[in-house]
């Protein structure tokens, strides 16, 4: 039974695209057949993070408008044979996406894949509402920072009212994914803690992704972090999160802070 998962946040720059790529690759590595769909029309980037930017011929809008068939627009990952990408358009404007068009593409993808992961654009406009419209589950990417938490709360409200599931009186299954978490700073009272965020958002936790250079390194070379350096802390955190999405129970590891001796002796350094 196919699952439609939206990766959303409201706020930009919190790690939606990185998380879409990393979770998609991790699910595909576990043998699931996965398609990651870029809904950021006009500002596509999932292709770049996935390392497929030079292979884009047709896109989501072409399929919506009937210019191309879905099979022509899907790009198969070169590393994982059961991972596919449906890119967004770079040139069209976002009004080219229609509710009916998205609905029929999602319905067709449901017949071909186990997971349809929709990478939402930032904001709460058309692109973001259409990315979540047909979702069964949602990953709300949140940074431990006030504006991100506020926007996540807003998005949670939309997931509970503007989705097809919500309109049928059902619930989109929601998960919070905390990214760019810095345990040391949270322990020093400089950053909202995991408990703070979960208490405020009242939504179950999918995983904690630590702030890490490995994330930038992976996007630099166009590889999901779970493939680029599978042993790295963020990759392991994403892999655990993907296993939880598949229904496994995996112990939640709070990334440990690496504090130097001097740091301990002198207390905090300027942040």
């Amino acid at each position: 039974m196919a699952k439609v998962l939206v990766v959303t946040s409201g706020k930009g720059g919190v790690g939606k695209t990185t998380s879409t790529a990393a979770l998609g690759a991790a699910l595909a590595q576990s043998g699931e057949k996965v398609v990651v769909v870029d809904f950021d029309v006009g500002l596509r980037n999932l292709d770049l993070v996935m390392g497929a930017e030079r292979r884009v011929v047709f896109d989501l809008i072409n399929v919506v408008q009937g210019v191309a068939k879905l099979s022509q627009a899907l790009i198969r990952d070169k590393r994982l044979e059961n991972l596919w990408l449906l890119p967004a358009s770079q040139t069209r404007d976002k009004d080219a996406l229609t509710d009916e068009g998205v609905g029929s593409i999602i319905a067709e993808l449901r017949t071909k894949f186990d997971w349809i992961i929709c990478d939402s654009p930032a904001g709460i406009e058309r692109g973001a509402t259409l990315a979540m419209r047909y979702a069964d589950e949602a990953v709300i990417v949140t940074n431990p920072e006030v504006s991100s938490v506020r926007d996540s709360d807003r998005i949670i409200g939309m997931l509970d009212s503007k989705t097809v599931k919500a309109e049928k009186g059902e619930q989109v299954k929601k998960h919070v994914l905390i990214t760019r978490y810095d345990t040391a700073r949270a322990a020093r009272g400089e950053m909202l803690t995991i408990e703070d965020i979960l208490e405020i958002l009242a939504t179950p936790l999918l995983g904690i992704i630590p702030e890490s250079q490995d994330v930038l390194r992976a996007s630099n070379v166009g590889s999901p972090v779970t493939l680029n350096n599978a042993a790295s802390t963020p990759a392991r955190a994403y892999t655990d999160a993907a296993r939880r999405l598949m229904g496994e129970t995996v112990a939640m590891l709070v990334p440990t802070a690496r504090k130097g001796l001097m740091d301990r002796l002198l207390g905090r350094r300027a942040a």
Partner: protein
Amino acid sequence: MTASLLRFFRGRTASAPVARERLQILLAHERSLRGRPDLLELLREEILAVVSRHVVLDPDKVIVKMERGESVSTLEVDIELPNGFERIAAAG
């Protein structure tokens, strides 16, 4: 334990509790408004309609602001009228 001790000695740097408190207050307020029409937008439109019956107005020149205080809040309505608006009204 260590964290709370550290926090105790360096109370000045612990801004996260402030963040949490501000969020809790703000979100309680925002959640209560969710799904309802935007009050300010509604006021703006209705005030605009009333004044427009008598004066020709540029809709962009009607500014409605609200400032929330602890015990009272203030509503500020700023309407820019073109010069000679009385005559326009009399003629209309």
